[in-house]
């Protein structure tokens, strides 16, 4: 497992600090850079504005170009950007206005505003990086979020963002800002669980959510925004998948991709596993038909987080490796599997005893 937090010797700071770790000086040097002085086992000492800054990491792990967030008085730092990974995500808030049955990151009441620090961190990212933005619900802090997006877009036009949002908080007047940011720069990941408003509202735990989502999606469409529509398959919406496919075909022809996703067994997803997990290795039919429908309509469908051996052969081409490197594991029988190279495997917190029934090497 890859560490997203690193032990540090606490710094005498009163404000959160963003630091980029460098193994040697670079051309685009910034005031946020710390240059390595010494490595001794898992202890690495950096020079930062004349002070010593100590980080602990496994000996062979590269930290070159990584960006850390150090909070006052804390002995561990958040590894905001791993320079050699494509899976860097900023958790901008833990507040949320929905309470989804499968939530992997259950919401918290309080918000700690780190947008300024995150904007700095983004500006230190490697060239052409894609930065994920997640929550909670990032658009609960819409003005701060847009400020950050505009600031980073101005200083780093090469960066792109993948922002997960429930799309409850877009207003028609936001279209202008969305256009100004550019449709190529941001991919909005928006969940839709059912074309039946009641079912969707029940799954996300918020009455009227479907109606707000429709308005939000209409705004995104009018702004020409890029949208990845996301549907986690559950026992609760399994019979609605074809309805979602047809909803996409009639109303959401503008989306870039439809992601049909398997459940992540963490957070509420773990709590509700028995009543929510749909074993698609035993019954794939609704997902197959949903893919058949949108594909013939000329739209792209992908299966996210489906181990390849859980997918019938004709649909394996729709199942790319999507589980982030730091969350991924493989099972015993994966050792003998010819498809392991292209398979995304399982979430670290997947429990095979309660999981898919029909798996095995392919």
């Amino acid at each position, binding site marked *: 497992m890859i560490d997203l937090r690193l032990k540090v010797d606490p710094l005498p700071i009163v404000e959160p600090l963003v630091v980029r770790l460098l193994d040697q000086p670079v051309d685009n040097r910034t005031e946020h850079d710390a240059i390595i002085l010494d490595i001794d086992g898992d202890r690495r000492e950096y020079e930062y504005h004349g002070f010593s800054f100590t980080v602990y990491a496994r000996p062979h792990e590269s930290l070159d170009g990584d960006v850390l967030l150090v909070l006052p008085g804390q002995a561990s730092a958040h590894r905001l950007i791993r320079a050699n990974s494509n899976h860097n995500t900023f958790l901008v808030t833990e507040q949320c206005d929905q309470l989804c049955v499968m939530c992997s990151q259950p919401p918290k009441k309080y918000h700690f505003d780190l947008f300024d620090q995150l904007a700095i961190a983004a500006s230190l990212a490697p060239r052409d990086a894609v930065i994920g933005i997640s929550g909670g619900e990032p658009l609960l802090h819409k003005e701060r979020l847009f400020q950050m997006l505009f600031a980073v877009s101005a200083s780093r036009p090469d960066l792109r963002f993948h922002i997960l949002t429930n799309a409850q908080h877009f207003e028609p007047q936001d279209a202008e800002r969305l256009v100004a940011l550019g449709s190529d720069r941001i991919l909005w990941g928006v969940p839709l669980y059912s*074309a039946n408003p009641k079912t969707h509202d029940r799954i996300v735990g918020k009455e009227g959510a479907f109606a707000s989502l*429709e*308005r939000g*999606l*209409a705004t995104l*469409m*009018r702004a020409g925004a890029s949208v990845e529509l996301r549907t986690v398959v559950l026992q609760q919406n399994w019979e609605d998948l*074809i*309805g979602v496919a*047809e909803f996409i*075909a*009639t*109303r*959401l*022809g*503008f989306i870039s991709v439809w992601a049909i996703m398997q459940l992540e067994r963490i957070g509420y997803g773990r709590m509700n596993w028995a009543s929510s997990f749909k074993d698609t290795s035993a019954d794939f039919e609704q997902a*197959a*038909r949903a*893919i*058949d*429908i949108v*594909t*013939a*309509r*000329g739209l792209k469908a992908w299966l996210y987080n489906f181990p390849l051996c859980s997918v019938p052969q*004709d*649909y394996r081409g729709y199942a790319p490796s999507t589980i982030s490197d730091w969350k991924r594991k493989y099972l015993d029988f994966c050792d003998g599997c010819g498809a392991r190279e292209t398979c995304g495997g399982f979430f670290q917190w997947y429990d095979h005893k309660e999981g898919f029934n029909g798996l095995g090497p392919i």
Partner: protein
Amino acid sequence: MKASRVLQIVPLKFRPTDDGALLFADDAGGYFKADQDFLERYVDDSLTQSDHRFLDVNGHAFDGVGDLAYSGFEYRFASRLYSPAELDYVILVPTLRCNLSCGYCQVSRVNETTPGFDWNGETLQAVLRFLGGLSTKRIKIEFQGGEPLLRLDVIRHVQAFCRSKFDHCEFVICTNLQEVSPEAWAVLEEPHVFTSTSLDADRATHQAQRTKNAQKTSSFFDNFDAAVNRLGPNKISALPTINPTNPPPATAVIDTFVGYGIRSIYLRPVNHQGFARKRFDARSSASSWNRYHSSFIDALIDFNWDADAPLEEYYFTHCLRRVLRSGHNHHADLRNPNIIGYSYVVIDHDGKFYPTDEARMVSRVGQFDLSMGDVFSGIDRDKIDMLNSEALNNFHPDCVHCPYQAFCGVDLVDDLSRYGRIDLPKHLTDFCQRHTYIFDKIFSLIYSEDPKVGKSLAIWSGAPRFDSSFAKVHR
């Protein structure tokens, strides 16, 4: 019971089908089947709650302007309209000379030795200046003729210029493959060079229609064999031209193409232009063509049922996808509005610009002058823009009643070529008759319950299986 919710229903057009039902479709290409009773309720404004529910789910209704259903409909409608992109595709005719004299030659060729039908040095330089002024970074150049391999020197000049000027170049050489010199093979084998040729069904048909004698026929098939082996089936396309009054058996065409490993067959009827209109009775051939085409599609469906590698008829696949999808506008033969003279142009042997190859032929036989300037004095679109302003089916008094309008297009150059006018009632035109047939055929297959049909429709629509929900019937 009458509906309580106030839904707005989009306009529906309808057409009887062979099974006694009615096919309904809207302006954005949404469709379904229903019966006469539904039609009467629709006309009487007495739709039931169940009608409304169906129309809502199937995308034919909305609550208010700007809501998601409305916007989604708008998006589908707008995506079906063709909007020309920047000029990035140029068809070049460096010579009209040809070493074959096919009975239906579409382009009014001249004999191989006839002087005065080639680009001279000034024409070549003017063409290069024109290409040099384009803003695109990617260019597609298609060499036609005559036989363009007779002017390999021009091909090489243009290639060298384009490779120095554009980031990405693609060249298509439309050749009869009758005589291919070692130097010509070297050009055809280069990366990003594609070969397009004609292969009329089988040896006998090809000889009867094109090569005339056994020796020339052998030269062609030897070269074609060599081309498939040296270039690979992905770098070569072969179009069979079909004479609808005396067509080859579908199985003969299929066997030939399968033998060469070519999986996409683009059947072309003899084109009623150039010399073809003098020799063939092509003015009223639509019905015989449609019959043949329909039987060919049925033969493909039979073939695909147990074939390891399936086949398609290119244009049928295109039309099927235009039924199912919005924004499927890449084929120049079927667009609405069909704006010509912008995203691609033809430069003839004398340096004149034409909006399409067909416009060049219409002009060549003296019906109309559809040229639009020349490479020496520049593009002049005045005349073509007059034609463009009529090249739209959305408001055409015949097309507005047709459920196929959203899938279909217009071809005014074809109308001019055949009838000398663009205002013939649409149903009397070859274009309308051929496309009405093809969409009738498509819907008869979409609503078929034959698993063989389903298998081919899946392949042609690009999906693993063809879903039954595409054959909605509202009762």
